[in-house]
């Protein structure tokens, strides 16, 4: 369960890093394709056996080949914001071939980028999503008070007037 959450976190991490570049583009009102590279080098290459052993007995973890060695990997992710190149430091802990932890450190230099990286690094929290009302079995819905009718009417009229 924890590793599933951590994998989810990593997906969120990487998705958010891509989002950083896109957000920067929108903020500057100028679109450029963000170029993004993450270098995560393993310090030791794992080797695969030249022959495969077929067996019907269950494979225990001690005989499993992991693509990555256990350890803590820290690398700089680079991307290009419209204001210039930026970096963010990512640290990933690998244990038993799975990601056990992930974190980031802000390395941006531009104020806008610093803000975005800080927000992102502020903690990998679960994000709330919405489901369609008809997919959920409900008796009632609670939310902010339904707008006073007069309020809505007046606002619509004002908007219409403002367009003339």
């Amino acid at each position, binding site marked *: 369960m924890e590793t599933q959450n951590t994998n989810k976190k990593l997906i969120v991490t990487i998705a958010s890093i891509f989002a950083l570049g896109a957000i920067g583009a929108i903020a500057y009102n100028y679109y450029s394709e963000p170029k993004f590279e993450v270098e995560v080098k393993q310090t030791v290459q794992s080797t695969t056996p030249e022959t495969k052993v077929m067996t019907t007995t269950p494979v225990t973890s001690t005989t499993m080949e992991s693509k990555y060695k256990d350890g803590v990997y820290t690398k700089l992710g680079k991307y290009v914001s419209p204001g210039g190149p930026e970096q963010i430091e990512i640290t990933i802990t690998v244990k038993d071939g799975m990601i056990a932890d992930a974190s980031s450190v802000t390395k941006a230099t531009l104020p806008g980028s610093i803000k975005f990286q800080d927000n992102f690094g502020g903690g990998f929290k679960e994000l709330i999503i919405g489901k369609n009302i008809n997919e959920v079995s409900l008796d009632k819905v*609670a939310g902010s008070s339904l707008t006073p009718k007069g309020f809505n009417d007046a606002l619509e009229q004002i908007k219409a007037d403002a367009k003339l």
Partner: protein
Amino acid sequence: MESFSFEATGTHWEISLPKNKIDEKLVNEIKKYIDTFESTYSRFRKDSLVNNLSSQVGTFELPKEAKELFDIYYELYKLTNGSFTPFIGKTLEEAGYDKTYSFKQKELSKSVSWEDILSYEHQNIVVKNPIQLDFGAAGKGYIIDLVGKLLEDKCIYTYCIDAGHDILYKTDQQDEKPLRIGLEHPNDITKVIGVTNILNNSICGSSGNRRNWGKYHHIIDANSLESPKDIISTWVITAKTIEADALSTSLFFVKPEILLSKYDFEYLILYNDSTINKSQNFPGEMFT
């Protein structure tokens, strides 16, 4: 249960009662009662008590039921250091949410202290410096509680009152199931962000989504003179609807722990980055 619905307090009401309890006499009595309450406490009603207190210096005798409303406003005024206040009426009108819904924004005056304006000892109130009062942050919750009491006076102890999505559900039946309540997505009314449930409790939600104009929505912090933007929606579950209503607004101004020092309630806060903060025992599940 059977339901009947009508428009009142500027919104849609639906009241559910056990079968055969609904009759025309009761429906009319409830509507009249709500109308009387509104004509007393609403700043949008000409000649309301609230408007009289907002425009005249002097000593006034308040109706008996005014006590609970004034008490909770004074309590939360102190707990929030004045961010939650009945004097927000002036601020709302200056921001444009005035009696004619003009939405013309003027300069906002600095907040005032309770002691400078009122001296209150139920049932008497002394108005020293009149200022536009507004009790909207707790008024709807209160009228819901009062309608509940009206029903109980008639020996109806099982009822659900839904007034514009502020809900009170009471029952004296032992085997009744809780009501499943969807938590409305603040930006998409076809969606819910989670499901909670209430049984002998009320739930109120606050959000800036429905009433907003310019840089304001209808929740303004009297101290900063701004509409908080980091919190998108709040929900409170507690026994009294007046408290659920007032606390859901207060959560925009102060941390839950401050309010928990005086009130017993469950809460859910949704922030603008789609994360949440909820009390440990807030029932139900959130969709993530």
